[in-house]
């Protein structure tokens, strides 16, 4: 396991940074928000990202991907996080494609994954049902009917739900509400009868939706993975998602910190730069230290995903270390960033507020710091 980037990863990171800086500054997200853009992402940018191969980064060559690993996808996510780039990278590439790759049949993989790489297919993972992420607490039901199933239930916080062509829906085929067994995954066309999708306008100006399923009839071929036994695979997919989002958060927090540091070196009060005040210096130094720890946690988790010898248990532990730490520090850094900017940090005109808003949504997504500390303790037998 290496904690430093390989030469190839560093090259990819540099080119991703150059692309993002040039084409996707924060003003792009601001524009999407102000125009209440129907899609919530910039299609032209996404097309360029597809051309750069970002959608196929972690997908095996056998299914049209570039097999560059999660380490590669991770540095792209990190750089996209620097400017809060809104795109289908997380919902479609990180979560949707991983669900198909980890749980799908040979047919599903060879039919769908190439379409992710080319951009023909957008996906969304529908799991949460209540305001808190509790992946085993699934009420949405899937009842066997003939060769297929009938689904009923509601989902919330479905990232990219309103733009996806296909939804990956987590539902219960048997068992009680908190049971890990009895959970199944289904791939459902977004335009199937009984599926209704309502976009939610989130504080971070990124995409999310509420989903309701009313007697949705689907065929048996919609099943993704084994009936009633999808939880272990789902957990791995969620861990991939947590690690990828942590990488994106790392980019965002580094940028928020850099912006703040620049401000401390420019703003004068009492005739001196405010960055000379020890009251601010020590807090900046503490943030720097925490960000260094975050970087190590993300690198370790990404490199574990690309290491075939790492067990799911080890990946679960590293995913929870990364997501707990990043969620905690993203909150710290974004709060401090606004505070250190003073009045200007409270204005919509200034970008720093966007970083705080995104930090909160990303922290809550797929489990906040409390969730992952609890999970870490359980994984370690205390």
């Amino acid at each position, binding site marked *: 396991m*290496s*904690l*430093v980037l390989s030469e190839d990863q560093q090259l990819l990171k540099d080119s991703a940074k150059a692309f993002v800086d040039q084409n996707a500054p924060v003003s792009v997200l601001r524009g999407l928000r102000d125009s209440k853009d129907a899609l919530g992402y910039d299609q032209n940018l996404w097309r360029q990202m597809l051309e750069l191969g970002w959608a196929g980064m972690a997908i095996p060559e056998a299914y049209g991907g570039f097999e560059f690993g999660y380490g590669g996808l991770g540095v792209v996510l990190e750089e996209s996080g620097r400017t809060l780039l809104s795109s289908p990278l997380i919902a479609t590439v990180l979560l949707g494609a991983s669900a198909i790759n980890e749980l799908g049949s040979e047919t599903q993989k060879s039919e769908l994954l190439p379409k992710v790489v080319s951009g023909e297919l957008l996906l969304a993972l529908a799991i949460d049902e209540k305001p808190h992420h509790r992946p085993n607490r699934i009420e949405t039901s899937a009842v066997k009917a003939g060769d297929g199933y009938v689904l009923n239930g509601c989902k919330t916080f479905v990232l990219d739900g309103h733009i996806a062509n296909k939804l990956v829906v987590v539902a219960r085929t048997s068992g009680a509400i908190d049971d890990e067994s009895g959970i199944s995954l289904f791939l459902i066309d977004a335009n199937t009868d009984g599926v209704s999708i309502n976009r939610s306008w989130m504080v971070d100006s990124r995409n999310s939706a509420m989903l309701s399923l009313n007697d949705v009839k689907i065929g048996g071929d919609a099943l993704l993975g084994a009936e009633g036994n999808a939880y272990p695979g789902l957990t791995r997919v969620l861990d991939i998602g947590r690690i990828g989002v942590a990488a994106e958060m790392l980019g965002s927090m580094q940028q928020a910190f850099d912006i703040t*540091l620049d401000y*401390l*070196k420019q703003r004068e009060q009492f005739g*001196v*730069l405010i*960055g*000379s*005040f*020890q009251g601010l*210096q*020590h807090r*900046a*130094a*503490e943030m*720097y*230290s925490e960000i*260094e*720890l*975050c*970087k*190590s*946690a993300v*690198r*370790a988790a990404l490199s574990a995903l690309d290491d075939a010898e790492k067990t799911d248990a080890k990946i679960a532990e590293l995913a*929870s*270390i990364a997501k*707990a*730490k990043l969620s*905690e520090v993203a909150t710290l850094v974004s709060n401090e960033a606004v505070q250190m900017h003073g009045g200007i940090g409270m204005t919509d005109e200034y970008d720093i507020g966007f970083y705080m808003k995104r930090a909160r949504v990303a922290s809550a997504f797929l489990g906040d710091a*409390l969730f992952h*500390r*609890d999970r*870490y*303790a*359980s994984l*370690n*037998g*205390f």
Partner: protein
Amino acid sequence: MQAIAQLEDFRQETRAWLEANCPASMRTPMVDAEVVWGGRKATFVNPESKVWLERMADKGWTTPTWPKEYGGGGLSKEESIILSQEMARINARPPLNSFGISMLGPVLLESGTHEQKMEHIPKIVRGEIRWCQGYSEPGSGSDLASLNTKAVLDGDEYVINGSKVWTSYADKADWIFCLVRTDSEVPKHAGISFILFDMDAPGVTTKPIKLISGMSPFCETFFDNARAKATNLVGGLNNGWAIAKRLLQHERTMISGFGLAGSQGDRGGTTSTMDSVERAAMYYRGDTDKISDPGLRDEIAQFKIDSAAFALTSQRSIEESKQGQGPNATSSMLKNYGCELNKRRYELLLSSLGSQALGWEGEGFANDEIAVTREWLRSKANSIEGGTSEVQLNVIAKRVLGLPDMLSLVQK
């Protein structure tokens, strides 16, 4: 980078040599009483410690990467990593612990003359001389550069007058590396020299300081016309501050290692409940499946996660410095975080043990419980010695983040 095959040969040879030469009792977990510090007054509670030290010193493997010319092992970085892996594989104890190895040696190799290296390095490698550090003074703590101990040239010797404080193990050391003022007319940083002399010299006295933990690892050290050879002034006259700072970086790298305890505690082979905070919490609360206090459980989980991320960061820092840059400004960050983690660990152990961690001595408390109490008190010094946490944060702000230095404005 060396060829893989060559390194594999080295691994096999090393493995065979360690198998043949590491005594059985040196493959058991270290106990405090058997730590080898070397020196003229060295005692060996376990005779095999002496055998182990001598065999390792003969190969120069007490300091694997130091040049062969001065008695070191002459190993490449890759080879020294293999050596430590192979030692870890058989749980071999470190043969020698010393400030000579962790602090003085690296700066002497960087800045000493050939004659100085020839005189001092081999004795560090072999553990023949035990060193102590003369830095802090009663009036010069965080503001170290204001130090007052004077050295005046008299013929080919310096005459030294003044006193030092917090000198670790001065009463057990043979020689001291010491910061002295050699010019009082220039700005404070520009009049300091770094000099080495024998603690047995007439005019040197030491007095242990009793700490809140009841232990006395530190001394006051007094110099009353003590004499040092001028040839033992390192790095040039009035250039001591640069040497002092460089040495502090090595010291901080060493102290930051304390923070690794939190993540290492759970590795195999440990024997005490106290090695794992969460096991201690469950044991003393009578819990079986999980810690019954959700607040304590969350705090311990957070501590463990931070410890794991810290260990990964130390590892990353090593990987990043493999090109041989040695410790850099991030050593301040690691020192600071490591110390704070170690303090957190003892606070959590105190919460976990309840009143069993509040005993001082006597009946009703097991030895390892008393040790937790004493170590909790001892840990408070972690963020004071080697530069306080506040000084480390100043260093990070100035050197790493490039923030303006208010102090230097004040001092001008």
